[in-house]
């Protein structure tokens, strides 16, 4: 029986095998964990589709292949032949003497840039070294570049011409990439100043014992006295890369309002116990805020948008991402799809489900895609204010922090007086390319108004 690359989401066409839990020759039982697949958002555990012995592993760890590609073959343990009837009919044997000559090529380990990648990289002025490659052996695929472009990061161009407009030959491009050199910094001795292979090789050797190329493994880090070196986990690295790219893409502006949560509090007190008894978990501020955000977006739709080239793409649905911390080990942002169609109860249930599954590692790729706005909640830790990083390709993100009892001024007909109210700061980081401070401020103002004036008990439904 063939083990194939599963489809990790409706719009996903590729996947990377990240971990094999079995090797060739191992026996596996049906539904036993066989391998893991990753995209840049999630790692999915895949069980074996049948019992038997692994006779071949065709795609190794780190390789990216199309959905449907055969990754491994399980032989039915009973008769040793491929089980399930869908076995291979046999591949064309390798013709004698067809193996290509592998005469020495410098840096033969680093996969080169394909013509399609180079074209995209040139057109968008990108630095391929800054884009993670998910192709076979870490190769940068066209899809990687396209995904990166959607993420909107910029960088230095390599392309297929040097800054002077002279063509860069295949070997020159390969060498520039392998050694992390900039074509602009190399003088060309070829016709019309073209950079020749030997020019690059000369530049490499004159650089002396240079630091390794971008893709070379770094030297091991020494732990400081009394300290420790903790290698960054895959998810932390991915998150970090996303954050860096986000800050490099969007000019972040922070704005905040301070809101009186009394009405939400009242609703919580009134319905909390019954809710907990019925649903098994408590009713927090978060679903109320989520509802308020959806309503406020209704009045300020540009908040719920993305930048695509020279356009602001305003989304019709509100797919609300909820940032979930995984026990200090990482951050995930599962998405409540069509949040604007749900009430507080619905949102509470959805948020609960997503965060539970996030912590259990049971999110599906569809749970992590197509978000249009994000809520980040540091409230439980009692923070004052947070300036969150925008979740690309969205244009804004909201942070809710600690709600504490504070003395506030309450205005009434009879004059101002001091009261005790639950108060919290709601802060939005927005992308100044999408709209200005006034629009964001107006949105926040409306949000506070909704928080402070809604009859939340009625909203719980």
């Amino acid at each position: 029986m063939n083990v194939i690359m599963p489809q990790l989401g409706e719009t996903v066409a590729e996947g990377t095998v990240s971990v094999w839990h079995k090797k060739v020759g191992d026996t596996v039982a049906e539904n036993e964990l066989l391998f893991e697949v990753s995209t840049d958002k999630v790692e999915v555990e895949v069980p074996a589709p049948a019992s038997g012995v692994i006779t071949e592993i065709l795609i190794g760890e780190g390789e990216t292949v199309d959905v449907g590609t055969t990754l491994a073959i399980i032989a039915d343990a009973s008769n040793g032949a491929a089980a399930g009837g869908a076995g291979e009919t046999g591949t064309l044997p390798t013709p004698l003497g067809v193996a290509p000559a592998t005469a020495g090529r410098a840096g033969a380990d680093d996969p080169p840039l394909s013509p399609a990648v180079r074209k995209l990289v040139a057109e968008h002025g990108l630095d391929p070294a800054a884009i993670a490659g998910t192709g076979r052996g870490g190769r940068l695929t066209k899809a990687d570049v396209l995904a990166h472009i959607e993420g909107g990061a910029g960088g230095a161009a390599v392309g297929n011409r040097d800054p002077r407009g002279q063509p860069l030959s295949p070997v020159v491009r390969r060498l520039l990439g392998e050694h992390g050199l900039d074509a602009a910094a190399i003088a060309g001795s070829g016709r019309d100043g073209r950079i020749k292979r030997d020019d690059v090789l000369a530049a490499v050797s004159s650089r002396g014992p240079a630091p390794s190329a971008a893709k070379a493994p770094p030297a091991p880090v020494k732990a400081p006295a009394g300290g420790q070196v903790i290698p960054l986990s895959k998810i932390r690295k991915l998150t970090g890369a996303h954050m860096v790219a986000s800050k490099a893409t969007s000019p972040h502006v922070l704005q905040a309002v301070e809101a009186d949560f009394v009405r939400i509090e009242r609703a919580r007190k009134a319905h909390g116990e019954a809710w907990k008894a019925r649903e098994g978990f408590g009713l927090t501020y978060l679903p109320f805020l989520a509802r308020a955000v959806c309503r406020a977006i209704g009045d300020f739709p540009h908040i719920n948008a993305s930048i695509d080239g020279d356009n602001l793409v305003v989304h019709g649905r509100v797919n609300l991402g909820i940032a979930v911390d995984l026990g200090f080990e990482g951050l995930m942002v599962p998405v409540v799809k069509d949040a604007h169609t749900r009430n507080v109860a619905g949102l509470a249930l959805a948020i609960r489900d997503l965060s539970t599954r996030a912590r259990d590692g049971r999110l599906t790729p569809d749970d992590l895609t197509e978000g249009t706005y994000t809520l980040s909640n540091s409230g439980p830790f009692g923070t004052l204010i947070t300036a969150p990083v925008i979740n690309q390709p969205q244009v804004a993100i909201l942070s809710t922090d600690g709600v504490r009892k504070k003395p506030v001024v309450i205005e009434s007909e009879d004059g101002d007086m001091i009261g005790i109210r639950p108060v919290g700061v709601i802060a939005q980081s927005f992308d100044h390319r999408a709209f200005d401070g006034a629009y964001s401020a107006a949105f926040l103002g409306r949000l506070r108004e909704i928080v402070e004036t809604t009859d939340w008990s009625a909203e719980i439904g």
Partner: protein
Amino acid sequence: MSARKKTQSQPKSRARARSLAPNIANDDIGEALRLKLYTSQLECRQIEQKAYDLFLQNLIKGTSHLGLGQEAIAAGFATAMQPKDYTFCTYRGHNHTLARGASMEGVLGELMGRQCGLLGGKGGSMHLTSVEHGAMGSYAIIGAHLPIAMGAAWSAQYRGTDQVSVCFFGDGTTNIGAFHEALNMSQVWKLPVVFVCENNLYMEYTPISQVTAVEHPAADRASAYGLERIVVDGNDADEVYRTAQTAFARARAGEGPSLIEAMTYRHSGHSRADPATYRPEGELEEWLKRDPIPSYRKRMLEFGIKEKDIVAVETNVTGRVNAAVETAKASPPPSNDVLMTEVWADGGSAWRN
């Protein structure tokens, strides 16, 4: 080459065949050889009929050119040959290959594209070959094998053996260039090659008479190459046998090539795809009356061979044919790894390092 009467090749045998009381005492062929000739013809007939059936069952793909009705020529010559002699035939070569001793399951298996096929499934119906039996190939390009047969004769002459090279082809071949080149050069070099034209009256779908400048496409060209004009009844295995013997004797004696035109008729179309509607009405029926096999059976009885012995031969042949069918059917298709083999003598196909 001494002059001979043009119209008769074997006056003696014609007289014998027509007598009402066969003269057994003067029978130069004899019972054993007759049974052998009959067996050979029967094997060819039954295998070709099986090929026909298997094609209808879609177990034989592509195309096949059946020699139904032409068995006497293949049997007659093969019986007159020695195992060391070479034969070359056309794509209508199942009979000729069987008659030299190739296995039945080898022939059927090859038609069905199976491992047990003579060629391992790589050549197909049109290229049946069994070098160990001297069957040096069936050739699909009209005329190509005439000079090749001549080459085998040259080799025999050069090596000083008395091997003969026998080349079978159809009436249509007599109009292609290679026919003329081969005849001319064989005669000039006096090579031990016997060219046998099986004139079944049709060049593929066209009557041969419509496309040939002379009446007998082979025999009437013989004189152009200094060869004797020889026309025989290709449906009379005895006549064929005797003619073959004469030609072989000449060749082995170093007297050079012969060109024999054997008149016959094919019962089926040119190939499996051909329903042969171009034949005039009644022509097939007329020739079926002269079907070599029932005629020969009748003759054997006339010569006093016992019915039960004949039946024993028939039963034996049928049994072996049926067994061969089963063997061939049970044989698997060739394994994938033979695809890239045997282009070169080292068994491989590499064109580079």
